C-alpha cells in the first residue's frame, strides 16, 4: 500500500495530504461563519406585540380618541372605567350609538336652548325624547338583551357608557340620558378623564 497519491511520484504522503485538507476545511469554515446578529426571532416577538397592542387598543372602550370634536371632562374620581354597556358618544357635532352615527347636532347656542331641535323630538321643543336616538337604542337594547341573557346577567335593563364632550350643555345631556332611560337602559357610566384636582 502506497503512502502517496497514486500517479504522482512527487506528491506528499496521504497523512500529510489529509492534514492539509483538514486545515483548509477549518480555514474555509471560519471564513463563512455568520458574523452578524440574528434578530429575526426578536422581530417576530415585536410583531406579535404590535398586533396585540393594536387589537387591544381598538377593542377597549377606555380608549377614547381625544380631538377638538370630543374632549372628555376631567374628574378626580379614581375608579376603574366600566367596559360593560352600549357606548353612546356625544361629540360637539353628532351623536353615535356604538360606531354608528345617529344624529347631527346643531350649534351650541341652539343645543343649550332647545336641545337637538323640535324636529328631532317626539312632541315638540319641550320634549326631551330624541326619536332617532331612541330608534337606534331600541336596536342596541335588543342585541344587548340577548348578550346579557347568554352571559347569565340580569337582562331586565341594559347599561350604557356615555362618552360626552366636556362642553356639552346640560340640556343635551339630559335628553340623551332620558332617551336611554325610556329604552330600558337603567344604569349609565359617564366616562371622564382622571385628573388630580377639580378643574375650574
Amino acid at each position, binding site marked *: 500500500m502506497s503512502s502517496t*497519491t497514486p500517479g*504522482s511520484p*512527487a*506528491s*506528499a*504522503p496521504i497523512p*500529510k*495530504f489529509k492534514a*492539509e*485538507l483538514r486545515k*483548509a*476545511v477549518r*480555514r*474555509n469554515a471560519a471564513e463563512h461563519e455568520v458574523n452578524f446578529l440574528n434578530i*429575526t426571532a426578536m*422581530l*417576530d416577538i*415585536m*410583531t406579535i*406585540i*404590535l398586533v396585540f*397592542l*393594536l387589537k387591544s387598543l381598538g377593542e377597549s372602550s377606555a380608549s*377614547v380618541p*381625544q380631538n377638538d370634536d370630543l374632549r372628555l*371632562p*376631567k*374628574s*378626580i*374620581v*379614581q*375608579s*376603574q*372605567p*366600566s367596559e360593560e354597556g352600549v357606548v353612546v358618544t356625544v361629540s360637539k357635532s353628532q351623536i353615535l350609538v356604538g360606531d354608528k352615527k345617529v344624529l347631527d347636532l346643531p350649534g351650541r347656542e341652539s343645543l343649550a*336652548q332647545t336641545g337637538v331641535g323640535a324636529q328631532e323630538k317626539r312632541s315638540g321643543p319641550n320634549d326631551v325624547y330624541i326619536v332617532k336616538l331612541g330608534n337606534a337604542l331600541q336596536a342596541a337594547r335588543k342585541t344587548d338583551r340577548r348578550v346579557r341573557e347568554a352571559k347569565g346577567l340580569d337582562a331586565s335593563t341594559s347599561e350604557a357608557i356615555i362618552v360626552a*364632550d*366636556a*362642553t*356639552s*350643555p*346640560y*340640556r343635551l*345631556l*339630559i335628553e340623551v*340620558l*332620558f332617551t336611554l*332611560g325610556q329604552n330600558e*337602559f*337603567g*344604569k*349609565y*357610566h*359617564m366616562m*371622564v*378623564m*382622571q385628573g388630580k384636582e*377639580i*378643574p*375650574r
Partner: protein
Amino acid sequence: MEQSTSLSAAQRAKIRRLVAPREISPDEEGGELNIIPFLDIITNILIFVLATIAVTFTATINTTPPSSGGKGVRKDIQSMALNLTILIVNDGFSIKAAGGNVAPGCTGPGVGIAIPKRGGQYDYEALNACGSKLKSASPDFADENQFYVTANPGTDYQTIVSVIDALRVDMRDKSKTLFTDVAFKVPL
C-alpha cells in the same frame, strides 16, 4: 526529502476543490421567504405606535336615569332624609335640602344663592364645605350618599362633573365620604 513533504499541484487542486463552498442550485435558491424587510417595517411601526399612544387614564361616574318633578329612580331613603339637591345657575350653586332652600353662605334656611360665584368662577371648595356641614347636621343623614343635580340648560358637562367631584369626599378630611351617588333631574 523536502519534495516528499510538500503537496503536489494535483493535491492542492484537490484540496481547493473539496473545500470550495458548495454552489446553491437554482431549485434550492429562494426556498425560504425573506421576511426581514417586512419585519423591519413592523418594528418601525411598533416604535411609532408606542411613541404616539397618548396615555390617558379614564374613569366612569355611575348614575341612573334622570327624574322629572321629584319622581324617578331613587334608593330607599328614610323619612328623615337630607334630600340634597344642587341647582347650578349662572350665579353659583343654589342648594335645597330637607329644611328648604339653603341661605347664602350655607348659614341655614333662607332665600338666595347658597354658594355664589367667587371671582367669576364656581366655588367648589365652599360647595364641599357646605355639603359636609349639611351632612353632619344630623346623625340621620350619615348613611345618605345620594344627591340630585340639576342645572341651567346651558351649563356645560365639565361643571356638572366638577360638582359631582366636589361633593364626593370632604376636602379637609379625605377619609370622610360625603355623597358618592348622583342622580339628575330634568330641568323644568
